[in-house]
């Protein structure tokens, strides 16, 4: 087989011919897999393999692989470096060993190999079972079970009556009647402010033009209407308006009543 010869070329035999692994890197699922293959080559129970021998085998194998595809081999080289470290640590006298001890590291490697091996065997045993659709078969043409769902309609008397109430409420003829609210109309206000301002000589507060005793909604309406009436009268040139500042009281008087206006202007100039 051509592939076999090629592989032998790639991995020049490091030792006796019968030990040679004649597979390319593509054949392994990573360095652990390669280690496991080598370990199984020791032909003893995995529990009893010699880690030291395994390390040497692995390192010899890697060094024998002359033409490593680097991107593929990186993992293998990392493992080789680690194994080389492990080997030197194992050979050191006990007193010079560091934590974790090389024995523990070896044990870890041991366990990892055992676990991978166990899972590989388990997978093979699993796939070898009597599998449905390969070895045993389900019914070829089952009739199938059919459940026809039937609605069980539910409603309470309350739902029924409430629904009728809603229909009635919705379809009853709707008549909107807006109740009369107490207001003072603008026309009223214009007449009233215009009349009152005529009989007063000096500045007077807007509020003093409202009818006596109006409070609440009517009071607000009267104030608003009187305010607009004042603006309208000012526009017609019938009243003058004065306010000292924002939100300050507003004063008004009949237009051109006397000279107070000039005095005001004088005050402002002095200020």
């Amino acid at each position, binding site marked *: 087989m051509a592939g076999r010869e090629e592989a032998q070329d790639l991995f020049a035999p490091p030792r006796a011919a019968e030990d040679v692994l004649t597979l390319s890197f593509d054949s392994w699922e990573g360095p652990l897999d390669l280690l496991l293959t080598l370990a199984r080559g020791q032909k003893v129970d995995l529990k009893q393999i010699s880690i030291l021998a395994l390390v040497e085998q692995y390192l010899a194998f890697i060094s024998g692989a002359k033409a490593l595809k680097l991107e593929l081999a990186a993992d293998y080289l990392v493992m080789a470096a680690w194994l080389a470290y492990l080997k030197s640590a194992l050979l050191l006298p006990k007193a010079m060993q560091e934590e974790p001890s090389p024995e523990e590291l070896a044990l870890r490697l041991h366990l990892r190999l055992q676990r991978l091996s166990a899972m590989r065997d388990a997978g093979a045993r699993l796939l070898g079972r009597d599998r449905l659709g390969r070895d045993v078969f389900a019914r070829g043409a089952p*009739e199938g*079970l059919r459940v026809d769902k039937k609605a*069980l309609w539910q*409603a309470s008397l309350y739902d029924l009556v409430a*629904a009728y109430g*809603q229909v009635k409420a919705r379809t009853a003829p709707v008549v*909107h009647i807006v109740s009369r609210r107490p207001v003072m109309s603008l026309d009223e206000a214009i007449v009233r402010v215009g009349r009152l301002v005529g009989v007063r000589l000096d500045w007077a507060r807007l509020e003093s033009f409202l009818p006596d005793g109006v409070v609440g909604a009517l009071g607000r309406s009267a104030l608003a209407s009187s305010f607009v009436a004042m603006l309208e009268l000012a526009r017609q040139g019938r009243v003058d308006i004065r306010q000292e500042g924002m939100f300050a009281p507003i004063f008004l008087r009949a237009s051109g009543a006397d000279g107070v206006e000039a005095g005001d202007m004088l005050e402002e100039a002095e200020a």
Partner: protein
Amino acid sequence: MSMDAREEPDDLSRALEAALFAATEPMSIAQLRQILGDAPDIAGALAALAADYAGRGVNLVERGGRWHFQTAPDMAHLLRRDRQEPRKLSRAGMETLAIIAYHEPVSRAEIEAIRGVQVGKGTIDVLMEAGWVRPAGRREVPGRPLIYATTPDFLTHFGLESRRDLPGIDDLRAAGLLDPIDLAIDGLFEREEGDSALENEGEDA
């Protein structure tokens, strides 16, 4: 008890059983022979197997020279069954039912007039499926529309002795179910409506 004491099946009958069970369509004896090889008496073994299964929940039957397993006919009710699922009536369904109950017999056009909304065909169908509404003849007007009324099941389901037990307009209002739109309306119409309802009730009783 004869069923439990079935004889140990021989290899041919086991093979037939497996082949027919796994087959996706009924099998002729020729087809079975292809699978089983040259068995001496496939026809005889099939007959024996069919007899063996005769009293069971699954039977081996021959149809036009081809054999297959099928579930026993008297088990059909198990394999295809109705399951009742509780479902709430939609609002349209509820309103339509209420209108039929209060005004029966009514035509669909009348229901729509009262609801102020169109009534889909499905709505009345659902009420009939539920068993609460039935067609109650036709109205003798142009077009002869179907008219609908409630059923005895309707009364049973809603716990009513008769339709008279349905709360009247006044009861609805007292319960706040008329959902007043504007208090002013009540003020204007309360007395008038109340009077007429009282009169009607008096006449009914």
